């Protein structure tokens, strides 16, 4: 019997599931209600409450005393100042700008000043000069998971594109140069790829559906604006693998902005960078009330920040965007439920 690939399987199931998945964007469906509703909620595994912090998208340059160095250091100091101290820190990719080892070494030196352990995933800016070699040398695996206070935390490399450079005879530097452009016309869409999907399948297989899941990727696990790779090609497969869980919190870098979405059992939040903010792409936001204000180009810290995420006993989460300048509307300032 022919082995059915995930995508083919999903294609088949989508025929009956399209309405559900689309509706899931805006309104809870029967399936998603199981994850969000009161009855299922009450049965969610109790966990010991904890706090963690998130930093991302420092885009460090191999230039001495670059302004972004100080902003990342400010993020690290901000996280270190949190009381109570976060249990750990997650870093969602793009520590460097042009994939140079010197950028990553500089970034690691700053991140190593964190008082708590941190876990990190790569972004495209860390990766396409040497296909992640320097990054792996410094930080290890591109995907990983660990358990904390009853929750299961996953990190994956979501920025893998098809080879566009071999046929075009591009040098590693040219390849990196193209990937550095957000609106790269010739780079294609990225995702986590089959190998990581296999790994994820195994990783979550033995977990019971009431296990609270936190997943971090560089790019969103939903189709936001593919033109800027504000997407992950195999997000549907990832969501499929995580569908058995009652509740999943997803956080992602890459968008350099406040953005929120909820699909089925997954609520996901975009993160502020410590380099530059990005404007919203020309599409309607699924949750237009959760956004940041316009930034002042004369204030180099406007639109940037760190994040604190509180996780309560019943796995109710709240993300606090800690903007370095006055960026947030009141409703976002109060914290966004995850």
């Amino acid at each position, binding site marked *: 019997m022919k082995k059915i690939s995930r995508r083919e399987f999903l294609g088949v199931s*989508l025929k009956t599931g399209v309405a559900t998945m*689309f509706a899931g964007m805006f309104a809870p469906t029967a399936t998603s209600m199981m994850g969000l509703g009161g009855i299922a909620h009450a049965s969610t595994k109790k966990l010991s409450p904890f706090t963690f912090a998130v930093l991302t998208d420092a885009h460090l340059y191999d230039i001495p005393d670059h302004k972004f160095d100080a902003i990342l250091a400010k993020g690290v100091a901000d996280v270190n100042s949190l009381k109570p101290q976060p249990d750990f820190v997650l870093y969602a990719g793009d520590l460097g700008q042009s994939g140079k080892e010197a950028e990553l070494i500089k970034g690691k030196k700053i991140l190593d000043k964190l008082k708590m352990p941190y876990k990190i995933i790569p972004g495209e800016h860390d990766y396409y000069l040497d296909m992640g070699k320097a990054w792996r040398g410094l930080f290890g695996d591109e995907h990983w998971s660990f358990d904390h206070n009853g929750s299961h935390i996953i990190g994956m490399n979501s920025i893998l594109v098809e080879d566009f450079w071999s046929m075009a005879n591009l040098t590693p530097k040219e390849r990196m140069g193209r990937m550095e452009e957000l*609106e790269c016309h010739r780079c294609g869409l990225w995702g986590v790829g089959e190998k990581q999907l296999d790994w994820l399948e195994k990783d979550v297989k033995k977990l019971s559906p009431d296990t609270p899941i936190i997943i971090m990727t560089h790019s969103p696990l939903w*189709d936001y604006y*593919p*033109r800027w790779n504000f997407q992950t090609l195999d997000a549907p497969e990832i969501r499929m693998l995580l569908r058995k869980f009652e509740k999943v919190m997803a956080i992602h870098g890459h968008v350099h902005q406040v953005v929120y979405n909820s*699909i089925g059992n997954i609520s996901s939040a975009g993160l502020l960078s410590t380099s530059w903010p990005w404007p*919203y792409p020309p599409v309607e936001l699924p949750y237009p009330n959760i956004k940041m204000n316009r930034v002042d*180009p004369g204030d*180099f810290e406007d639109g940037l920040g760190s994040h604190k995420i509180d996780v309560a006993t019943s796995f109710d989460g709240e993300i606090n965007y800690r903007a370095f300048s006055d960026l947030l509307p009141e409703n976002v300032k109060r914290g966004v439920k995850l």
Partner: protein
Amino acid sequence: MNINHTFQTLKLAVVSVMTISTLLVVAEVDAKKPFNAVEKEDQMNMLMAAVKKGDDLWHNPGLGSNGLACGNCHPDGSATNPHTWPKYQTNLGKVGTLREMINWCIAVPMVGKPLALDSEDMVAMEAYVMYTHRGVAIAPAKDEQHGAVPVVSGPGYPNADAGNR
């Protein structure tokens, strides 16, 4: 009908004919033939060459000295709001133009050397930004961030599931 009246009518008719013929002559002198298809294509090609040049410059960190290019913060020329200029801009401290704002960004966040306002490079960057906002209604000083024209992504798109489009 008396003779006088007939004469008056005739005079009016003559004047009218003269006026119309004068107008026709003037119209013929002032009229310009519409551009033909070849001319239009040539003009568009020249504009597109400028847009392409502007796109390249927009993503060229060489305009600054700290590695940043315009495109770092303004993908597809976004958040430049070309439809709102000229306007009072706080960073400029005066009523300024889009070109002056581009120069401000080159000089301040990018720590580079401003371009001559009428240089070919500056015109190309303006062409790029205007083209990515084609069709947006002119709205002087409107306090809004308008996106660039939506662009469909490369191969592999659309991704069938979960879109808000």
